[in-house]
């Protein structure tokens, strides 16, 4: 029997379970992603019911196996008010974490990067750059980090104006061949935790998308929905 209390979490997703319960997929600093069964929380007279994604919570759970039972929940910190485009960015981040982070694989770095990106995507001008930086940290934490400190093999310093081919099994290579085309300056900026503008941003997006796609078992659903939504309304999001 495991008993955990006072664990800060963000809810990534929740499913209905039976008539009155929910299964919460939580991101925690100490235990990674955990599934927790919240019994009876959909009843009209349930206590704390605001178990929506993105709300910072402090929870406790108890039990053995894959699905321990929620024993305690309370709000933690200042609630985040995501709306509009920021909300769509949040859904994308949640799906990404759900897809790439296995249950019980603890990565405090991912938890902190997640808390950071949720705060920063509320700033419209920074949304795209912050999503890219989160993808970069997520890949690095999971052991799929990009090689950004030099050329493949010899680690010779990258030249800003050179167009490299980024091969995922070795790194940035000069010349023609397999890999994602990307300029040295884009890779150097990524190595410093920065996303440039214009072409550099587009290159970073293409590179990170290719790196993520390699790790996915099935395509993500949120980007497809964003495309549908942007066809309907004026919202345009390119996660």
């Amino acid at each position: 029997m495991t008993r955990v209390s006072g664990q800060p979490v963000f809810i990534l997703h929740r499913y209905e379970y039976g008539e009155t319960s929910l299964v919460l997929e939580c991101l925690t600093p100490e235990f990674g992603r955990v599934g927790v069964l919240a019994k009876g929380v959909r009843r009209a007279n349930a206590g704390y019911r605001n178990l929506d994604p993105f709300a910072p919570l402090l929870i406790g759970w108890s039990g053995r196996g894959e699905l321990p039972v929620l024993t305690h929940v309370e709000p933690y910190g200042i609630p985040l008010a995501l709306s509009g485009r920021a909300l769509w960015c949040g859904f994308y981040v949640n799906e990404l974490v759900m897809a790439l982070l296995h249950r019980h694989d603890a990565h405090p770095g991912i938890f902190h990067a997640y808390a950071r990106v949720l705060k920063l995507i509320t700033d419209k001008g920074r949304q795209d750059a912050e999503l890219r930086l989160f993808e970069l940290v997520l890949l690095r934490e999971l052991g799929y980090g990009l090689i950004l400190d030099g050329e493949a093999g010899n680690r010779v310093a990258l030249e800003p104006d050179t167009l490299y081919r980024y091969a995922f099994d070795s790194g940035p290579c000069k010349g023609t061949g397999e890999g994602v085309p990307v300029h040295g300056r884009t890779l150097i900026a990524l190595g410093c935790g920065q996303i440039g503008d214009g072409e550099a941003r587009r290159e970073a997006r293409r590179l990170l998308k290719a790196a993520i796609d390699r790790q996915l078992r099935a395509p993500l659903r949120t980007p497809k929905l964003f495309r549908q939504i942007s066809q309907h309304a004026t919202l345009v999001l390119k996660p």
Partner: protein
Amino acid sequence: MEVPVIEELKQALRRLPGVGPKSAQRMAFHLLGRDREGARRIAEAIENAVRDVRHCTRCNNFSDRDVCTTCLSVRRDPALLCIVESPADVVSLEQSGAFHGRYFVLMGRLSPLDGIGPAELGIERLEARLRDGETKEVVLATNFTVEGEATAHFIAEIARACGIRATRIAHGIPGGSELEYIDRNTLARALGARRDA
């Protein structure tokens, strides 16, 4: 001793939400042992409903005719269109007695992580409704969950693109409650949406 028709009845009853094997057995034995007339009425009512009930072509709610009585009523304001997630929400709003416009029932909500997008929700029908020239204000009454908020925001964008005013029902403190026991999320939103007293 297992009787196949009784087993079949129990299995059928288990399709109802909240009915497990024990409840299904109790219901089956009750209907067969003590209320056969009731059982016939249930069977007949289900058959009639399944045969006759469809979605209203205007509001998408359940109806026994092509256009439901709410949509046909001349006493309701055609300029106001309230968007809700489910037929149960229409019942709740009607019970409030505070809304006299018309409805559109989405029969769900956008849920990106479950793969439910505009196409799955049949947003085209709502768009067609908004372009018919009658609606002047869309009242967004989707649930106050992140998915409900995302849905409301998306429909507000469509409404604005059609030149229609979009309003969201207020988010605040429930009547008869004390501030001490209100969660901070609700309290923050209520403060944000305060108005002149």
